[in-house]
């Protein structure tokens, strides 16, 4: 890379974000190495460098260096350009911020929280995978990482509405529910968008999309660009305020949920004036309220918990509740739920092309898990997981089917036009 690496900026940025719990995490690690067993990257590669605790080394060093009395005595170990270069790959390509290592750590250290903060420091130093950073910049400049501008959104929604003979409201003046989308869905899995519309129409709620704030994915957040992360959040918050939405629904995207549900208020500095629900949580709520009429779905399926929705999002039970009495041949993987293995592409890793081989290796864990259940199709509630799994599936020429939770629900709504088939 020709751009000089700014070690000082990295240190400064990390220190600016130093908070009590992060430092306590850094100082408490007993280097027991158990977290290696929980991380899918280590499981897939067997490379000791993929041990979660190791990923934090430069950050721990940066913090120690400035601490009294070491700094005062001039004994603090300084982080070097070499550290930053080596760890760039570890912090971006080999951490999906999935939180699985937290579940095994005897000290209860939440590595993912620190990695998220560490990424900001690396970006400030002029590091970070170019494609991931470009996705963030595109979100800022065009409204979405895949370049879906407001006009493109309008075109695409009109096309989808025509094609599927369905009403997809955009920019209604007032609505109770503001629906957001992920551009991965818009471009690669448009049926998912149609499915959300079908479910909302079926439930008879007052909803809309908004051209002011539609992109739910937050690549600013994933790429460690705090300003873009905040901008993406502001767009949705402004749109929600404009239509007076009481609830903002996040599509099938785990990190989008995490960013708006848990981080947004802290980025903005005030509580959000609406409730944020992931589409699976929202559908579970509709089901509880008796607003979802479903025909039984009989194909054999298993469910992949998106890390940010289940383990780190607390919606593990909602997906099960939706599948209960609906998916008649639902089989759990082992392990599942809060201990589910990650798809390998979360936390922005999907957007890093040089990490592809590693992602493929990680997916082998999943293939194995699915095969053990004997289920024909692997359903998920995250289009980013789905894209990662689709690509890995192609790589391994895997026969298993992939699908989406909202799509199987939408396809089996009773009375929902145009058809109530059993397709995935």
């Amino acid at each position, binding site marked *: 890379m020709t751009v000089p690496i700014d070690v000082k900026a990295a240190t400064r940025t990390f220190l600016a974000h130093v908070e009590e*719990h992060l430092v306590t995490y850094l100082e*408490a690690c007993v*280097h027991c190495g158990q977290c290696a067993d929980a991380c899918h990257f280590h499981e897939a590669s067997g490379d*000791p460098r993929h041990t979660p605790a190791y990923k934090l080394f430069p950050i721990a060093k940066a913090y120690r260096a400035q601490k009294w009395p070491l700094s005062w005595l001039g004994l603090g170990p300084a982080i070097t350009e070499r550290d930053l270069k080596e760890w760039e790959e570890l912090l971006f390509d080999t951490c999906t911020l999935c939180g699985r290592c937290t579940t*095994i*750590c*005897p000290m209860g*250290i939440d590595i993912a929280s620190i990695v998220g903060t560490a990424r900001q420091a690396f970006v400030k130093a002029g590091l970070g995978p170019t494609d991931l950073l470009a996705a963030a910049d595109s979100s800022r400049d065009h409204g979405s990482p895949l370049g879906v501008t407001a006009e493109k959104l309008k075109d695409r929604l009109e096309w989808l509405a025509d094609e599927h003979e369905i009403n997809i409201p955009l920019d209604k003046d007032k609505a109770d529910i503001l629906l957001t989308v992920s551009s991965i869905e818009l471009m690669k899995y448009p049926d998912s968008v149609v499915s959300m519309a079908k479910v909302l129409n079926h439930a008879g709620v007052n909803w809309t999309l908004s051209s002011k704030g539609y992109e739910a994915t937050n690549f600013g957040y994933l790429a460690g660009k705090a300003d873009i992360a905040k901008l993406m959040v502001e767009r949705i918050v402004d749109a929600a305020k404009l239509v007076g939405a009481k609830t903002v629904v996040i599509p099938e995207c785990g990190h989008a949920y995490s960013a708006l549900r848990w981080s947004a208020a802290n980025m903005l500095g005030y509580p959000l004036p609406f409730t944020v629900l992931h589409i699976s949580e929202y559908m579970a709520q509709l089901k509880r309220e008796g607003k979802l009429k479903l025909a039984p779905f009989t194909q054999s399926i298993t469910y992949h918990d998106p890390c940010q929705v289940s383990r780190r999002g607390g919606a593990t039970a909602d997906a099960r509740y939706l599948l209960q009495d609906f998916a008649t041949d639902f089989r759990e993987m082992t392990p599942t739920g809060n201990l589910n293995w990650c798809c390998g592409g979360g936390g922005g890793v999907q957007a890093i092309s040089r990490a592809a081989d590693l992602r493929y290796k990680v997916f082998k864990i999943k293939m194995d898990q699915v095969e053990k259940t004997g289920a024909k199709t692997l359903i998920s509630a995250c289009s980013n997981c789905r894209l990662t799994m689709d690509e890995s599936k192609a790589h391994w020429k895997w026969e298993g089917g992939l699908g989406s939770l909202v799509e199987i629900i939408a396809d089996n709504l009773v009375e929902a036009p145009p058809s109530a088939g059993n397709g995935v």
Partner: protein
Amino acid sequence: MTLLDFARGPALSFAYAVFVFGVAWRLVSLLLLPRNKELSQAKPGAPSVFSAAVLGFVRHLWPQKAYLRGTLFATLNGYVFHLGLAIIVFGLAQHILVFQSLFGINWPNLPSSLISVAAVVTLASLVVALVRRLTSPVLRLISTGNDYIAWFVTTLPVITGLLAVSHLGAPYETLLAIHILSIALLLIVFPFGKLMHAFLVFLTRTGTGIFYARRGAEI
């Protein structure tokens, strides 16, 4: 002043002071760091902060079933030397006398033969921990000087204590002095490195428990 006088007197007093001030300094400097106010909405039905903290602590006492195959041995070994150390420190009659003189409280002691067994088992367990650290590729990579120093200052008092009790190699008074000095070393090192985890574990586990509980997650 004999070596024993020195060990019992100035050495130990200095070590106590370093330990108390060191631990206090470490904890205060952590707790004084900024803490951002959490502004996101908690999940409806999330447990109270108190129960979240307790649950967080308890949940990480033992690995979940999915992890047991890989972690059972290390976890058991960890428990063996932690409990072994506790039995030795709080169970031996002579140690209880020290606590009595420091805090004015005492409790019934355990038979010294049992303490000896505990010490041998603890020592073996510490050796196993070291061998694992030196042989597992993951542990070798992530181990730093800090880990080895912590191991050394923890193991030394166990060895010197065993020697003192068995009167091996030197006059009892000398052995006792060496044992006390090794404890002084442990106390002096304690606040500045990995041994602090004995206190920090209460912050990390509870903190993580609270972090996830408000999200409605159970980890």
